């Protein structure tokens, strides 16, 4: 059909078709801060994966003869109050940090988004119930909520995951519900209904993919915040049981020796700051890259 030929006219000789992915990459990695953030995250994940190979010592091996030593050739960052190698502990601490981030966001994201999806899509009394429950959770300060749940469940790494997961859940639920409510009004959702798509299909092939960009940004940011929250719990002594090396607990125990060997608190502190900052930077980059209209929406 010659008409079809003519319709493609303006594209002839014009700048080549840029795929969505190429555009994404270009915007995303157009700034060095985002590249820096990505680098820090990749490095941390790498360190966490290969901690046994990278750490010079067993992080939990107590050596009372070498307590609170300054950096030396033997212990690159010195030792803590029990003579454990600080570098090894920081390296092993990254495992907890990375796993807390991932697991907590998974729990919070999966449950929160599913509930949000149900509440937004079906609405009615079921939606009202879900959203009121989330409001109740959100009305408590997050740290208090986390403390309450952690104390209720008792210590241990799995309990920390659950406590943080529940505390992080309401925001996902709310954001998802809001997104679904607005996307639901689009004509293409009605079109899917009209061509005979069922609820599952409408939800998972039209609503969720379109609701996902802002959630994706939030996930990246929350990976950082979850690490921070876990550190706070550990710092308060309610989190993961000693002697497991976690950055938060290390800052806590190091603060008594702040004057003699400040490195004990500073090194894990810097690690947390760097990683959380990296997640924030990448989250910002993602937000701009995924959709320019999203700017300022979160």
């Amino acid at each position, binding site marked *: 059909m010659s008409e079809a030929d003519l319709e493609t006219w303006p594209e002839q000789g014009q700048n080549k*078709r840029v795929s969505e992915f190429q555009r994404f990459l270009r915007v995303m990695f157009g700034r060095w801060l985002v590249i820096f953030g990505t680098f820090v995250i990749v490095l941390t994940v790498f360190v966490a994966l290969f901690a046994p190979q990278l750490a010079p010592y067993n992080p939990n091996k107590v050596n009372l003869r070498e307590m609170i030593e300054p950096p030396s050739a033997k212990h690159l960052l010195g030792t803590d109050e029990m003579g454990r190698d600080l570098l090894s502990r920081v390296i092993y601490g990254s495992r907890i940090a990375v796993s807390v981030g991932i697991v907590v966001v998974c729990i919070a994201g999966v449950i929160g988004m599913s509930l949000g999806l149900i509440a937004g899509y079906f609405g009615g009394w079921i939606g009202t119930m879900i959203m009121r429950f989330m409001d109740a959770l959100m009305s408590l300060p997050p740290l208090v909520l986390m403390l309450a749940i952690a104390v209720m469940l008792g210590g241990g790494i799995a309990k920390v995951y659950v406590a943080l997961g529940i505390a992080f859940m309401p925001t996902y639920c709310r954001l998802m519900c809001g997104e679904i409510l607005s996307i639901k009004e689009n004509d*293409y959702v*009605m079109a899917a209904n009209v061509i*005979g798509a069922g609820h599952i*299909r409408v939800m998972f092939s039209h609503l969720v*993919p379109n609701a996902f960009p802002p959630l994706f940004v939030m996930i990246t940011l929350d990976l950082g915040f979850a690490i921070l929250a876990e550190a706070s719990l550990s710092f308060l002594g309610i989190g993961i049981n000693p002697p497991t090396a976690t950055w938060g607990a290390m800052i806590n125990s190091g603060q008594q020796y702040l004057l003699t060997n400040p490195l004990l608190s500073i090194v894990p502190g810097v690690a947390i700051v760097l990683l959380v900052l990296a997640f924030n930077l990448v989250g910002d980059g993602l937000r701009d890259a995924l959709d320019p209209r999203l700017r300022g929406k979160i």
Partner: protein
Amino acid sequence: MEQSSNNTILEVKNLKKYFPITKGFLRRTAGHVKAVDNISLKIKKGETLGLVGESGCGKTTVGRCILRVYDPTDGEIRFQGQDIVKLPYNKNRALRRKIQLIFQDPYGSLDPRQSAGSIVGEAIKIHKICDNKQTHKKRVEELFTLVGLDPEMASRFPHEFSGGQRQRIGIARALSCDPVFIVCDEPFSALDVSIQAQIINLLQDLQQKLGLTYLMIAHDLSVVRHISDNVAIMYLGHIVEIADWREIYERPLMPYTQALLSAVPIPDPIVEKKRERIILEGDVPSPINPPSGCPFHPRCWKAAPDCSKEIPELREISPNHLVACIRV
């Protein structure tokens, strides 16, 4: 069940759709918006019925009730002899496929994260029309060509298409279900004038090729005149006049229809100078609180005291020309 009334494909009887207005925390119903109030119409196979009215008159609601996007408050919608209002959902689904929709907004009606090919192919997948990937692909290509798009463009995403091309994708999606009846909800009004004609011609060609029946919801009277066999004029939830196109355009009886027609400018300064214009006073009343009696009487220059007493029935003035006005 089978009712053979000489190839009527769709019959709407006393259709009502009221939307509740809720108030307060407990969502008590405080009143109703009578979006569609007791309308009846018939469409024969292969015909186009133009449904004309101004915004808020309920024309879109009629279309959505027929598509079963909305549940009618009351009334019957008989499609191919079966009342689709009462039909259970799973049986409905097979029948619903036969009634399709073309949207007004070519931008909002396509999922931005789906490729054009996947948009067109979705219904084929849902209804398992094609049994393997090969025939599926072939069918999608066929549909693309049918609506005048290059099948090569199937992998592109909606934002890469122009408004007219998007509208074509929407039409291909509707056709993918092998429909017999298509509700066209203002399919031209969001398009540029130069593109409008392409889509009008396309819809006309498709009607001839595939024997489709259209319900053409529109507010542009010149376009409706160009493509409709019969025309129904709606005002505030009621059909106020219904007849074949010639009668409506050449012998409009209801004062509202006359005002509507005179409001449409003709692109010819000489014709325009000679035309008599009827300018209506005031605004369309709110459907929450419609006037008593004839919905049009507060703005009608022919209104008599009796007009406010009772809602006038549609009466047959001449063969197939029905008017709801006591002054005719």
